């Protein structure tokens, strides 16, 4: 951590040197810590929050409040026209969502599938990042190829996989040459694993990218120092390099989980609607409730319940890894 605080001090005084002082007076040579504080608290450019804040308000906060309001209305195709005055039903939608709909099953599917996909992609991403860390002939090409799944639109990924997973399709005939009959990929219990497989394929480069950025931030001196200490590759990786990756990977884990839980395109294109019961994940369920059954109120209640369910572990996680705390240098690493 000593290198961290050193770097922090170093980066902090670069802008400080050029920035105009609010006090206008001369700076005492011993006032370095005072100066830093002054810059971060008094001169904080809070107005820069206005554009983003306004957009947040319009695009996220207002719709969310509306969504919460919708969740206490009996809003369907019969009442949509005068939706503001549609019948108020209190918590009925919530009760129905929790007791008489596949919501909890959907939450379980979403969270478990996201977690499994995450647990598999993290080692894959790290391994790929470590493997392409040192220069070798063709590294640029390999790195570009690694990014292909990530840059392809979800829709394309899902369409291609769906075609390959057709009964008697490419995957089946490939496995057939080894005498394996894999059964159905796009229907039945196996769909859950199909979804995980395709999700892993599509999302591991994201972990790879963030792991790579973590590796890049390891100072050259660190490599030298561990070499001088005689650390072999595994020990060096385990005790010297991995701690650097903790920050980026925590972030990757968080974003990845949220991304998977919210992923609509992949299951929708792979399995269609109505989805097989084993992949009726949250986004599919809310979609079907809203746009096939036209129960907008119920669907808003479902969305709200799932938001709360996802927010609790998220909050705990954020506190645990301190990603929300920019003051802690460890959070950046």
């Amino acid at each position, binding site marked *: 951590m000593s290198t961290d605080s050193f770097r922090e001090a170093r980066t902090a005084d670069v802008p400080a040197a050029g920035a105009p002082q609010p006090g206008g007076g001369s700076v005492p040579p011993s006032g370095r810590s005072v100066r830093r504080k002054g810059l971060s608290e008094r001169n904080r450019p809070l107005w820069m929050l206005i554009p983003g804040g306004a957009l947040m308000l319009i695009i996220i906060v*207002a*719709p969310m409040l509306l*969504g919460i309001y*919708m969740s206490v209305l009996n809003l369907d195709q019969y009442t*949509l026209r005068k939706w503001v005055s549609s019948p108020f039903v209190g918590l009925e939608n919530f009760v129905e969502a929790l007791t008489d709909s596949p919501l909890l099953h959907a939450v379980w599917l979403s969270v478990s599938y996201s977690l499994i996909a995450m647990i598999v992609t993290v080692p894959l991403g790290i391994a790929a990042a470590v493997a392409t860390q040192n220069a070798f002939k063709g590294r640029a090409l390999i790195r570009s190829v690694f990014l292909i799944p990530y840059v392809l639109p979800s829709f394309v990924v899902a369409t291609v996989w769906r075609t390959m997973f057709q009964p008697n399709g490419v995957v089946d005939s490939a496995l057939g040459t080894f005498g394996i009959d894999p*059964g159905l990929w796009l*229907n039945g219990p196996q769909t859950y694993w199909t979804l995980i497989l395709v999700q892993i394929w599509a999302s591991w480069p994201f972990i790879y990218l963030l792991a790579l950025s973590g590796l890049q931030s390891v100072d050259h001196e660190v490599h030298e120092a561990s070499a001088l200490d005689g650390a072999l590759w595994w020990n060096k990786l385990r005790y010297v390099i991995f701690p650097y990756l903790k920050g980026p990977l925590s972030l990757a884990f968080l974003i990845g989980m949220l991304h998977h839980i919210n992923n609509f395109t992949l299951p929708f294109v792979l399995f269609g609607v109505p989805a097989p019961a084993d992949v009726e994940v949250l986004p599919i369920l809310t979609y079907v409730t809203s746009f096939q059954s036209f129960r907008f109120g119920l*669907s808003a209640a479902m*969305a709200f319940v799932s938001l709360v369910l996802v927010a609790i572990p998220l909050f705990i996680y954020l506190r645990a890894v301190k990603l929300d705390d920019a003051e802690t240098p460890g959070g950046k690493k």
Partner: protein
Amino acid sequence: MRFASSARLAAVVAAAALALTACGSGSSDSGSTGGAVDGKGKKLSVLTGVNAQYSAQQKQWFTDIAAKFKAQTGADVEFETFASANDELTRIQTSVVSGQGPDVYSLGTTFTPTAYATKAFVTLSDDDWKKVGGKDRFNPAALGISGPDEQHQAGIPFVSRPFVMAYNKELLAAAGIDKPATSWDELAVQAKKLTNPATGTFGLATGYKDNFDPWKFIWAMSVQAGNPLVDGKNLKLDDPAVKKAYETYFGWLTKDKVVDPASVGWSNSNAVAAFAAGKAGFLLMTTSSSIPTLEKSAIVGKYAYTTMPTTAPGESSPKGDGDKAASILSGDNVVVADYSKQKDLAFAYIKLITSKEEQLNYQKIFGDLPANNEALKSLEDPKLKPIADAAAKSKATPFTGAWGDIQLALLNVTVQSIPELSSGSVSDSALQARLKDAQSKAQASLDRASKS
């Protein structure tokens, strides 16, 4: 969650649009009565589905119709297109909530009851019908899904797209079949004769994974057995006729073995491809839109269309409305928005596009059959004859706002049965349980429909 928030977003956009309208200029009612509508300086906004198959032709059609409309009324037409049913639904929702948007919408027939339930579209009065050229200009069967009853109709038929089956004349002749079956039982027998696993040829081509076809089969077989599925406030999905329909439909694969086992993963287009390759005797549940594909295929000149069987499985003749249920009433309706400030202009536009000449022209370009009665009767292409027959023998699906859910429940039975279908048999108890589940979910939806 992402999609739920886009619904919320839609609501916000709608609210914002509402706020903006207050500032905008409210154009006054066209108010003209009798004779040609004067729409000088006005602009009619029309929302219609994009035709991916013939997109260049569709653009040309928009230009041509706009020019003709301008010549008749002096008004411009602005066309907007939607790419999917969901896209359209979002547009309807925002327009319904905000009270502004397109003047004329084009709707699929099975979506018409849901749209009608929002009460956002004009229910035509006798006077209004006169403005679109009179009710008698339309094929009477096509009016079957325009509204809950004859006095309350909002959907004006634009085109018919009835479902028929295609058959391979060569394969049928080789198997010694002189004419295609008219009952489902006979069809299964013919299909067995046509099936030859050694050459990869199967009697029937159909897609079990299609998003629409499965419920259409179940609906047709049930109606032909005398069960219209919806009887007033009661839904009858747990009826023996429905179960028999599923057993027949699944049986082609599990018992009769007359369809390609791979079809558990097929959609309708896969089935068309198999038929086009000469690998199937019959192509079930298809429309005239398969003509362009088949005309370019290996079986060009060797296929013909005919109506699908109208005698329910296990029966010797159609029961109830059976003989009129060769196909669901399928096609497009146009509706006029209730909030439109230029309804007369909208009716004038509909009058133009449903005229005999325009309907025949549309048929030539896009293949969809005319809803205009005279135009329908004047079709001479022998290939289209059986399709036109099916248009007259089409029966509307029940007119209720709950139909979307009923359709979904019927489809879901097939979706959840596919793993067992693939492994060779769907157990009676599993099917029974799924039907019970479908019944209770869809009945709940029907209850809400009858309460509102």
